[in-house]
C-alpha cells in the first residue's frame, strides 16, 4: 500500500483572469436566476408574460446557466491546475472573450430575433419556427453556441498541452500506471486526474457538438441537405450531456484542493479514486440515452446501454468523493466556516441530485416521469446544491480575510436559508414531477398551480441568499488576489 502524507503547499491568490471568470459567472447567474423566477411566477399565474416570452426566458436560462456553469467550473479547474502544470493565461482569457461574444450573439438572437427553440436547439425546431423567428435568429443562436464551443475547445487543447508537457501523456495523468500496476503513491494529484478526464470528454463532446451545429446551420439555409433527426438528437444529447456533466467534474476540484487544507490530511489518489475517474471517463460519454428511454425509434442497444450505464455511473466518482470527504473530515477537528461548509454541503447536494436521476433512469419509472418536472427537479438539485454551491464555497475561500476570521451572522443565516430554500425549490419540482406535471409548459393546469407558487416563493429565497453570497464575494474581491493562508488549522492538527 502506498502511503500519503499531507504536503503543505502555499495558498495562491487568484489571477485576475480567474476573478474575471468568477465575476462573469456571478453576474450572469443572478440574472438567469431572476429569469428562472419569472418562469416560475408565470407558471404560478402570479404574472402573465405570455408563452412566447416564457420560452424566450427558458432558452436564455438554459443556455446561460449551462454556459456560466462551464465558465465557473473552468475557473476552479484552471486556478488549481496551475499549481501543477504551466497553463497559458492568454488562452484562458481568449476563452472568456469568445464566451462573451457568444453570449452577445445569443442575447441578440433571443431578445431581438425572438428565437425560443430552447438551449437544446433540437432539430428541426430551429429551422421550423412557423414564422415565430427568422432563420437569421436561429443561425445567430447556433452561431453563438459554436463560438462558445470554439473557446472551450481552445482552453482544453491548452490544458492537454500542459498536461502532456508535465506528465508525458494522458495515461499517466489519469494514473494508469498506478491503477493497473503497482501503486507507488506517485499518481498525479486529484486535480490533475479530474482535469485530464474533463479534457478528454469535453474535447470529444465539443467536436460532436460543433459538427451537428454546422450541419444544422447548413440545413437552415439549404434545407435540401437533409439531416436524420434521430442522429441529430443523439449528437445533441451526447454533446449537451457531456458538457453539463463536465461542469461538476471541474468544480469538484475545489473540494479536492480546499478541504485538505482545513484538516491537513491529503486527498489520496489511490487505486479506488483512479479507477472511479477512469471508469467515468468512459461512462459519461455513453450515459446520455437515459434521456431517450421513451424514444422507441432509437436502436434498442442504445437504450439498454443508457439504462445500464445510467445506473453504473451514478456510483463511482460520487461515492468515492463523498467517502473521501468524510475521511478527510472525520475526527479531524475541522473548523467549519462558510467555505468548508459550502463545499461539504455541495457533496450532499450532488448526491441528492443524482438520486432522482437514478430513479428516473429506470424504464418503468420513466414511463410515468418522462418529460415531467421531475427532470428539472433532478438537475436543479445537483446543479444548484452541488455545482453552484461548490463555486460559492470557492468564492468564500478566496475572499476569506484571514485564516482566523469568523463568519458574520448574516452569512451564517444565508447559508441555512440557501440550503433550505434550494431544497424547497427543488422538492417542489420533484413533487410536481411525481404528480405528472409536464416540463417546459408555460401554462399550467389549475391543479398544478399550488406547487408552482410554493416553488416560486422558495426561488425568491434562493435568489436572496445567493445575492448575499455574491455581494460578499464582490466586496472581498481585492483580497482574493493575494497569497496568504486562508484555511483555519484543524483542532486535531494543533493539539
Amino acid at each position, binding site marked *: 500500500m502506498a502511503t500519503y502524507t499531507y504536503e503543505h503547499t502555499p495558498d*495562491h491568490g487568484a489571477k485576475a483572469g480567474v476573478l474575471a471568470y468568477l465575476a462573469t459567472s456571478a453576474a450572469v447567474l443572478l440574472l438567469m436566476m431572476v429569469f428562472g423566477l419569472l418562469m416560475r411566477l408565470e407558471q404560478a399565474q402570479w404574472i402573465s408574460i405570455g408563452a412566447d416570452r416564457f420560452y424566450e426566458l427558458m432558452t436564455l436560462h438554459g443556455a446561460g446557466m449551462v454556459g456560466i456553469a462551464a465558465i465557473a467550473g473552468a475557473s476552479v479547474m484552471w486556478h488549481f491546475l496551475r499549481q501543477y502544470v504551466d497553463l497559458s493565461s492568454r488562452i484562458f482569457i481568449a476563452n472568456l472573450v469568445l464566451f462573451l461574444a457568444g453570449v452577445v450573439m445569443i442575447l441578440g438572437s433571443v431578445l431581438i430575433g425572438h428565437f425560443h427553440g430552447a438551449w437544446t436547439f433540437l432539430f428541426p425546431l430551429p429551422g421550423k419556427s412557423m414564422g415565430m423567428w427568422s432563420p437569421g435568429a436561429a443561425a445567430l443562436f447556433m452561431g453563438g453556441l459554436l463560438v462558445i464551443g470554439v473557446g472551450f475547445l481552445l482552453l482544453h*487543447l491548452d490544458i*492537454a498541452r500542459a498536461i502532456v508537457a508535465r506528465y*508525458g*501523456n494522458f495515461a499517466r495523468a489519469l494514473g494508469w500506471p498506478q491503477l493497473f500496476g503497482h501503486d507507488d503513491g506517485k499518481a498525479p494529484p486529484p486535480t490533475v486526474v479530474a482535469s485530464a478526464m474533463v479534457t478528454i470528454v469535453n474535447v470529444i463532446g465539443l467536436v460532436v457538438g460543433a*459538427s451537428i451545429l454546422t450541419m444544422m446551420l447548413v440545413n437552415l439555409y439549404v434545407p*435540401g441537405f437533409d439531416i436524420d433527426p434521430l442522429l441529430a438528437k443523439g449528437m445533441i444529447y451526447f454533446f449537451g450531456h457531456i458538457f453539463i456533466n463536465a461542469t461538476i467534474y471541474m468544480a469538484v476540484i475545489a473540494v479536492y484542493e480546499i478541504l485538505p487544507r482545513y484538516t491537513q490530511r491529503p486527498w489520496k489518489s489511490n487505486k479506488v479514486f483512479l479507477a472511479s475517474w477512469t471508469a467515468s471517463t468512459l461512462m459519461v460519454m455513453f450515459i446520455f440515452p437515459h434521456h431517450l428511454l421513451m424514444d422507441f425509434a432509437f436502436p434498442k442497444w442504445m437504450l439498454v446501454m443508457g439504462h445500464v450505464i445510467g445506473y453504473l455511473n451514478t456510483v463511482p466518482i460520487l461515492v468515492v468523493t463523498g467517502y473521501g470527504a468524510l475521511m478527510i473530515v472525520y475526527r479531524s477537528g475541522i473548523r467549519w466556516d462558510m467555505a468548508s461548509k459550502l463545499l461539504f454541503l455541495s457533496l450532499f447536494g450532488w448526491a441528492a441530485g443524482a438520486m432522482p436521476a437514478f430513479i428516473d433512469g429506470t424504464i418503468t419509472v420513466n414511463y410515468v416521469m418522462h418529460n415531467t418536472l421531475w427532470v428539472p427537479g433532478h438537475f436543479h438539485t445537483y446543479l444548484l446544491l452541488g455545482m453552484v454551491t461548490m463555486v460559492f464555497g470557492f468564492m468564500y475561500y478566496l475572499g476569506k480575510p484571514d485564516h482566523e476570521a469568523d463568519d458574520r451572522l448574516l452569512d451564517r443565516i444565508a447559508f441555512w436559508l440557501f440550503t433550505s430554500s434550494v431544497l424547497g425549490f427543488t422538492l417542489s419540482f420533484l413533487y410536481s414531477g411525481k404528480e405528472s406535471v409536464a416540463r417546459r409548459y408555460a401554462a399550467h393546469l389549475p391543479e398544478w398551480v399550488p406547487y408552482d407558487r410554493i416553488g416560486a416563493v422558495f426561488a425568491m429565497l434562493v435568489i436572496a441568499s445567493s445575492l448575499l453570497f455574491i455581494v460578499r464575494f464582490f466586496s472581498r474581491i481585492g483580497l482574493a488576489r493575494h497569497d496568504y493562508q486562508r484555511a483555519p488549522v484543524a483542532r486535531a492538527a494543533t493539539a
Partner: protein
Amino acid sequence: MTAIAPDRARIRFCALGALYLLLAAPPVRSWLEATMSGHMLVQIPLLAAIGFAACRLLVAHHQERLLAIAGGPIPLVVVALFASSWWMLPRALDDALAHPLVEVAKFVSLPALVGVPLALAWRRLGIIGRGFVWTNFISMLAVLGWLYLAAPQRLCNSYLVDQQESAGWLMVKLALLLFAAWLGHLFVGGPPVGNPRAVHGP
C-alpha cells in the same frame, strides 16, 4: 529537429519527385480521377503531402528565411486553409477534369500552397496550433463527408451519386479514424516524469 545529411536529403527529394511525376502520368491520373474517392482522398492529399515532405527537406535556415518572408506561421496556415478548402469543392473537381489549365493549377497549388506553407508553419505551431489545425481539418472532413451524404442531388457533373455517397462515407470514416488516432496519441509516449505532485510548490 535533426538535420538530414545532404545526400540522404537528395535521395528523398528524388523519390518525392518521382512520386509527383507518377501522379501526373496520364494513366495514373485518369485511374485516380475515375472515382471521386480516388480523386479527393488519394490524389489531392498525396499532392499536398509531397509539398509538405519536400519542404521539410530544405535546410533549416532556408525554411526559417521563407517563414520570415511569409510573415510567420499564421498567414501560412490561412493560405493553406483556403487553398485546401478550394479543392474540396465539387465544382473545383469538375473544373479540373474539364480544363487542363485548372488541372495544372491543381498540381501546382496543392504542393505549393497547401503542403509547403503547412510544413513551414508546422515548425512554429505549438501543440495548441497543431491541435487547432488537426481538429479543424478533421471536423471539416467529417462535415463535408456528411454534406456529401445528405446532399439532395448530384454535386459534381463528373461523378454519379453513388460515387458521391461512397466518397462521403469514406470521408466520415476517415475523420473518425483520424480523431481516434489523435486522441490515442495523447495517451502514449512522452518522457517519464519525476515527482508528479507540486511543481510550483516549495
